[in-house]
């Protein structure tokens, strides 16, 4: 999931905002990119790769989804906490 955009490093080029397929990122009022809608980020790294200044950090861990095995304990490969 998208983790952070470093405001000090961001040069406001807008590349990440243009490329995000899920419209997660937008330009803020200070002309820097911001994470406007994180809830649909699919961890595709397109934003981080597009950024010329290394300001974007995407965490490689993906979103936790409703389980495939609701009744099997996590330690046995299921989804029951």
């Amino acid at each position, binding site marked *: 999931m998208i983790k952070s955009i470093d405001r000090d490093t961001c040069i406001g080029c807008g590349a990440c905002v*243009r*490329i*995000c*397929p*899920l*419209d997660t990122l*937008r330009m803020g009022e200070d002309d820097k990119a911001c994470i*406007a*809608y994180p*809830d*649909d*980020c*699919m*961890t*595709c*790294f*397109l934003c*981080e*790769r597009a950024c010329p200044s290394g300001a974007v950090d995407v*965490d*490689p*861990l*993906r*979103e936790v*989804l*409703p*389980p*495939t*095995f*609701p009744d*099997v304990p996590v*330690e*046995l*490969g*299921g989804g029951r906490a």
Partner: protein
Amino acid sequence: MKSDVKINKVETDLLILGGGSAGLWAAHRFNELMPERKVTIVDKGPQDWGGLMTMAGGDFEAVLPPDTVDEWLTDLVYYFDGLCDQPLMEALLARSADRMRDYERFGCEFFHTPDGRLKSVPQRGLPHVKLYPAQQKGRGGELMAKSLVARLKDAGVTRMGRIMLTDYLVRDGRVVGAVGFHCRTGEAYIFKAGAVIAATGMGGWKTSYGKNTPTGEGMQMAFEAGAELQDLEFCRVWNMPRLFAWEGQTHLFPLGARFVNRLGENFMSRYSPILGPNTDPHFTTIGMALEIRAGRGPIIFDVSPLRGEDMILLKPQTGWQKLNYDKLCKLGLDLFKDNTEWVPQMTVSHGGIRAGIDGSTAVAGLFAAGTARSLEPGVYAGGFALMTTAVTGHMVGESAAAWLKGADAAPALNEGEAMARLDRAYAPLGRTGADTLTPKEVLTRLQAAVFPYDVSIVKNGPALTKALAEIERIKAEELPRMAAADSHYLLKLHEVNAIAFVSELYVRASLERKETRAGHFREDYPHMDPAGPAWFFIRHGADGSPEFVRERVPLEKWKVPLTRCYQDNFNFVEPRDAAKA
């Protein structure tokens, strides 16, 4: 719709919904044939992003000598357990090498071995079907997308991004345009078109892994306009790491990787002594599910049998896959060193619009290409999608050009209908009240209804019936309460509506198919129907609700007889004869 919403009107000869592989190829081919006509590609995602292809490794299937189309067709009839539209598949396979050559001409390279030969990776234990990996493992698809977009730019094709289309406009039985809205500006759009190509991709459940954009609106819109759908009972259950995304398993299994259970057993060799782990994820995930249900999970990915020299093909070299890999290694999650847990996960729907070889649908002027039309019954070989989307896109570009040549000019739009459709699309915007729900809340409940393994993998009647009741409840009680705070969320809301539509048809179709065949496994009907393969089409019933129509596969008319089935390689349940005895 509020009266201050700006309405943009766009006229075009050809309107293409979706700028993924299929849409880009369709535009490219149409433009080659009719450079004087206006083509407009509209995408709900970024302009020119290229759809899922942008994230694809770039593996491509093509029938290259010494293989023949007939050999591949025979493989696919076997692999699909007979559910193969042979004339269609033959047409696609016959054009596959040309599209691969086009890509090479566009500057996209495929991987060559040190002695200069094209590297190929056989798929799913099939005698002939194989993929050709891109030279730049990890960026192959991205380079393909860029090469096509560059051509369209040069040709003056109009490309528009961030516009979600919600409805087709139909007049006198012919599609004459579409309406939608811009998810950033909130402005409305009315498109008038001579012909329309649906290249809107699959349905799906937003499971990350590069697959949050295919959500099925294209199918829903086409169905509402009068098109028929098919293959909704087939979904793609993918095996993926529990914690992260990983791309490239289509290479790993043929080269020796395997899954093991908690006891260290290579369980797929038990379920299929012939194929072992080298099969489609559809079968691997059934094996995983049975192991986990029996208490033998978790499932671990074991790469120890891989040979060092194959690693160059396997370790991501560039692109998002390399970035992902480097970050995971820092977290102690090196797939090639550490034990990583994998889980089966439902991802996208294999259902789609029913279309002829030329992409024509039941609605005049509406064509379908790529994964928006159904092409495979839930089993899939690596590289198949980039090939079939390129070929069907190319073919549909030709069909639309031929159709426009012969068709009358499109009738005028019915403005009243366009406005009524827009009003409906904008209605949830700014909806307030204590009982409103966000699209994400409803999405999570739809996912929870269909993800359980007895609905998505090892299906059974009671579990499917329970899931259907929950989806119907969500449709009645929750979809109408969804509210969008702004035009960004209005897009997400329409996606969730489509996910509900696809979820319902997925479950209904799964109940309808009372057998196990290709990518559909029913534990309560664990064998193939002895009556032979048949498709289920979905059309509007008399009361407007979806009606399933069974259509037998006319094997007697077609080239390749069904002499053996891929399904027979697995012993997830007792063989039919043993069960009888």
